[in-house]
């Protein structure tokens, strides 16, 4: 198991090169006046203390044409968000240090437009959600394992089926 306690992004993979662009279309394709596709790649910040999950999700998203960064701790993710301004935060919930909900609330302060998607392998998150609700935050948590297609759809803005 590879852990990243320094907060730097570490890949478990060899470099696979830049993902094919544009792949199957991105959520941010818009037609400008000239009819050209003006692509602003959507930025996704992935946080999971299991590096293999963060890395594979980042890899999948990059393949789908997203700009994705993977980190294994909340603190490093918040640091990065201050400069990088992600559009979407995808975070695990139960983690050492800051949990996903705490990260979500912090990111919303830094980047109010950022969407927060949480996913967890554990069901025991009801108390955490309740705690967040009392502070005025509403989160939905997806259950792991989640299929990549479904995850991509969610990030693109479709509601989970």
């Amino acid at each position: 198991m590879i852990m990243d306690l320094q907060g730097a992004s570490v890949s478990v993979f060899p470099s696979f090169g830049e993902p094919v662009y544009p792949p199957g279309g991105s959520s941010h394709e818009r037609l400008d006046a000239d009819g050209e596709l003006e692509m602003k790649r959507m930025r996704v910040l992935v946080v999971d203390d299991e590096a293999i999950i963060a890395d594979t999700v980042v890899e999948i998203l990059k393949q789908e044409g997203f700009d994705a960064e993977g980190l294994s701790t909340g603190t490093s993710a918040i640091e990065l968000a201050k400069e990088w301004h992600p559009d979407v935060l995808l975070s695990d919930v139960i983690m050492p240090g800051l949990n996903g909900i705490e990260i979500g609330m912090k990111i919303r302060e830094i980047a109010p437009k950022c969407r927060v998607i949480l996913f967890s392998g554990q069901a025991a998150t009801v108390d955490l959600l309740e705690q967040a609700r009392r502070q005025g935050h509403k989160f939905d948590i997806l259950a792991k394992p989640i299929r990549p297609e479904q995850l991509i759809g969610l990030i693109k803005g479709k509601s989970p089926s």
Partner: protein
Amino acid sequence: MSKLRDSLAGKLTAMNMLVSGGALLLAAISFFTYEILTFRANMTTNRTVEAQIIGANSVSPLIFNDPAAAEKTLSALRASKHIVYAAIYTNDGTFFAGYWRDSNSKAPLPLSVLKTGEQERHWFGDDQFSLVQTIMFEGKPVGMVYICSDLQALYDRFKSYGLILLGIVGASLVAALALSRIAQRVISKPILRLAETARFVSREKDFRARVPTTRDHDEVAVLVNAFNEMLIEIQKRDSALQESERQFRSLADSIPQLAWMGEATGELFWYNRRWYEYTGTTPQQMLGWGWRSVHDPAQLPAVMEKWKRAIETGEPFDMIFPLRGADGTYRDFLTLASPVRDDKGNVARWFGTNTDITEQRRAEEALRQTEKLAATGRLAASIAHEINNPLEAVINLVYLARKQPENARKYLELADQELERIAQITRNTLGFYRDSSSTKEVDISEVLGEVIALYWRKIQFKKISVRPDYGNGIKIVGFPGEIRQIFANLVANAIEALSAEGSLVIRASRVTLRDGSNRAGVRVTFLDNGTGIAPENRKKIFEPFYTTKKDVGTGLGLWLTLQLVEKHHGSLRVRTSVEPGRSCTVFSVFLPERPQTV
């Protein structure tokens, strides 16, 4: 006589009679004595005068030797009927002339001669008074007169005086009797009424009785008033006592417990209503040692032994045992009994209660089941987490392998590693759910290895160094799932207690207990250099629902651990220190080679 002893009135009467009779007797004796003395003096005087007259008239017959003349003079004595004999004797004592009242026995009596110079002598003999006197003529003795009289006059007088005295005494005694009756009314009657009331109160136990009072202010009246006041006081206390007794009984009847009282000897003499309601018995059946009939015969000997020990030592009694209800079923009761001591500190009686703890026991059992379920649930959740994460990775890796065929081999190798992780977890955790209804051989080192593997992620995250210090092949017979749970709870506790980079040393070795039981088994110790357990918490850590980790713990972990250890007839001890820099905690589990067969 006995009547005299029993009755104050009789005593008073007897006393009155004795005093009156005594006084009369004293008066009579004085009177009689005076009479005798007077009589004697009179008789002496009379006889002396008579002797002088006879002597004077006998001078010439003596001088002229004329006894006939002398006899004539003497015969004049016939007028004095008490004179029995009188005679004239010559100077030399020769009979000269005589007089006899009884003319049939005319014999001269011998004269007792006067001493020289003695003129007269008289004396009282048997029934007689005698007098001898010298007859003088011109200063010279010429003869002697001898007069002898009987004492009949005295006797006659005594007889009549005696009769009079008897009459007076009789009349006096009758008068005294009448007077004492009146006196009794004044003195003895209030006392008799006092005695009568006292007898009534002691016989009937009715303290409402009172002694009628009189208008007197004497000692008897004081006594009567004091007695009445005492009765008022006793009546007050008696009613207070009865009230207190009533209150006690209604209290004892209203409590949900069965309650009873016993003698210092252990026999019970009182039970509250609930006892009779629950057991369906009657007071007659329960008297003395009757309580034994509602006990389970199998457990009675142990109860009797403990109860007898409490009776002997006077120590409070507490025990849990079943009692048979009216419906024939047994329920468990917690029985507490305390000795009630008298002023001297001796056990006077016992007071005891039996509290039905059947429901409580059921609730505890239900709680234990619930806790088992909750623990299972928590375990399931953590297992889900352990499985879902690698599953997520596998799904992602498979997706990537499909999308990037050129890198498929690398992705699939990674996926294979993750799958191996899942397999490992299920192998380890499924052990918890194996059927634990039967015992089997358990390898302690193997179980410890699995438990450490289960918590490996947490251990790694906190950078805890775990030092296993045991060899292979330490085996005992037990319930594998439960032994695993015991170790898992203790390891989890140690991890919670440890801060980052702490250390946990786990030792396991075969031991033989030196507590007299000589039981062989295995001792496993978990030593962590964490914060230690504060002294105020040490006693409570094995209690259910006690936790210092309110946000994450249920407070049942160590309690459940102890239950499981005890199920294996083992023991669990803890030693801990909170000394800064040297704080540590050691949990030490002893598990016997095999659980005792029950």
